[in-house]
């Protein structure tokens, strides 16, 4: 077990983010499968930039040194679409031109062949989060909580190698936030995905239950 887990961990090796010469943030950490590393800090502390670096879509204005690895594979120069990073943003970002089911089916890897098989997989994914029968719905007609669940399932069916969560709960109301947090973290753990969570809400960090790195104060836990 330990070996497989090692193979799928996510490593940030001496990652430092600078903007016009000033170091915003420096991190070095290995995140085990199913583990959540929380980066906490105020806006402008470079924490979202870290996610952009990990996801492969960094604004060229930033200078970053260091590497990112999954297991032993160095992803630093790998284009975004070959990294298989599952991303959740503050907004669910469901594609408005596709149906709810279409959003999920879009994410299913091409290895799953056949319209029927893909649709069945998408319907099952919706069923799993209590959205059975929502396949043909317009995403715009869903509630905030429902959208968040669709976004989560869309990400999971794509078979990601790690998760990048960019304050994904901050726009949900209190009751929904607790529920969605539990859902996301339990799914990430069950799927054995190393996860980086970026937030300014300490309740998020607590719920994540992993290590917390506070930035902005230059302090590493």
């Amino acid at each position: 077990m330990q070996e497989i887990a090692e193979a799928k961990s996510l490593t940030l090796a001496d990652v430092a983010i600078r903007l016009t010469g000033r170091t915003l943030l420096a991190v070095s950490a290995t995140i085990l499968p199913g583990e959540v590393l929380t980066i906490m800090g105020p806006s402008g502390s470079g924490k979202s930039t870290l996610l952009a670096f990990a996801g492969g879509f960094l604004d060229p204005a930033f200078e970053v040194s260091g590497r990112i690895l999954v297991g032993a594979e160095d992803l630093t120069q790998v284009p975004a679409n070959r990294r298989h990073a599952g991303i959740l943003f503050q907004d669910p970002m469901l594609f408005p031109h596709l149906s709810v089911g279409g959003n999920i089916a879009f994410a299913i890897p091409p290895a799953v062949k056949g319209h029927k098989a893909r649709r069945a997989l998408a319907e099952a994914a919706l069923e799993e989060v209590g959205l059975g029968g929502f396949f043909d719905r317009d995403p715009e007609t869903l509630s905030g909580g429902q959208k968040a669940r669709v976004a989560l399932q869309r990400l999971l069916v794509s078979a990601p190698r790690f998760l990048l969560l960019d304050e994904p709960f901050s726009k949900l109301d209190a009751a929904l936030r607790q529920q969605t947090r539990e859902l996301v973290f339990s799914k990430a753990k069950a799927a054995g995905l190393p996860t980086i969570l970026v937030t300014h809400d300490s309740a998020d960090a607590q719920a994540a239950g992993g290590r917390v790195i506070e930035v902005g104060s230059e302090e590493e836990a």
Partner: protein
Amino acid sequence: MGLQTESPGPVPFGMPLRRLLSGNALLVVILGLPVLAGVAGAILPAFGYLPALGGRDLTLVHLVELARQPHVLRSALTGLAAGLITTFAALAIVGTFVAGFAGTWAFTRIQHLVSPLLAVPHAAAAFALAFLVAPSGFLLRLASPELTGFTRPPDWLVPNDPYALSMIAGLISKEVPFLFLVALAALPQLAVARAARLTAALGYGRVLGFGVSLWPALYRQIRLPVFAVLAYSVSVVDVAIIIGPQLPPTLPVRIAQWAAYPDLDARFLASAGALVQLATVLAAMAIWNVAERFGRIALARLTSSGRRLAEDGALRVAAALLMTGCAVTIFAGLGLLSLWSAAGLWPFPDALPESLTTRTWLRTLPQLRVPLGTTIALALSAALLALLVAILLLYRNGGRKNGAGYRLLYLPLLVPEISFVFGLQILLFSAGVSPAFASVLAVHFLFVLPYVLLSLSAPWRELDPRFERIAAGLGKSPLEILFKVRLPLLFRACLTALAVGFSVSVSLYLPTLLVGSGRLTTITTEAVALASGGDRRVIGVHALVQSLLPFLAFLVASLGPQLLFRNRRAMRT
């Protein structure tokens, strides 16, 4: 550092091709070369070099011949003055209006009134104005015979007055909506509300408050379009034929006439004219440059003088009235055109026709079938081609406004079309290319692409990048992301860009006339040809059909998403 940047993933082209296709370089090839080739094609024959017609020796005879043409200086100066006055007036109206009303309720209202005016072809707008102000036009009919005593149309030189006043009025009414839209696109980048509060607190009136705080920044953003307006107004042909001076006409009109002479030797004369016209536009730009400098000094003086112009109510009302006036005049004129197209007997000075009839329409429509078909085929192909190229360009450089390359967009709009299009005609003629659909289409494309690209680039930049990041995270390749995410999400913007391109192509007169050598007729060339002594009823039909085409295009652009995404609420608005 060589880390991943915005464009994720491998590039689907090999290295040399990739460099060629890298946005700006491609733009140089597509827009820069033809324009420069066209200018060269006009300049060389001006000095006698045109091997296809046996001209091999450099000579000044053709320029001397041009100078011998009667009233040629007057022709050139009239166009120059009309262009400068038009540009200044349009800019003053738009500037004062934006300064006086940005962020208010009235602003949005007038914006909705003025914006559709942009889609009205120049020729149709000119006819609309002509039908209002002509001696037998509607305004005089309203006032006759009670106020004027006229029972017959007076013998006035209107709308073809020698001072080009009607032409200036027609041009202003079309350039105001253009500059307004350009200013509108620049406004979000300015802190309008904050500057208004700040200057109001200092006791400034709205207009001067805007002027001292935001105008320099706004003007910097719209400067290139202003120069495009200047180049266009100094060199305009179709509007000048319809409502410009006649004895003599402006230089661009005379060049177009020489270029159309059956006697091929007249092309040397036309070339000499095209060269002088190029110089005239350069002179206009130089004068404008000096005027800009004076403007800057005046604004600086005004700013440091401490004057507040707190009571600017009258100025604001005037600007709003002039803005509204442009739209009301042209739309009233278009209404009048429709009335004429269906009018039975309509003697002067009756304000309304005695009867309505479908006779003109029934008689004219069959003749319109071929030009209409050509117009639509040209406009659709040019717009689609331009959209494809625009998407390719934006995809290659990520929608960034990259300095020099991006400015190249304006090149076909800054060089007078009579000069470079005429040059292209000569080049095509020399190369033995006979006028055909393809060559006219190629020239239409040059004029359509800048507008399509300008129309698409703002929505392209503004699309939330997170959609594409998520898709990349899901493992989609850049091309998959383009076709399955970006383009569907920009569907409405693409349709609008198509409609813009379609309208530009429909309204093109000179490129169709020159490159098509009169063998390819469109609704626009037909309409302008009717200008001298044509039957008002037939003109009414032509001008109406001509201005309906762009409106239909924009209608399709706004209904398309409604139909295609009936079931997707977020895609319909």
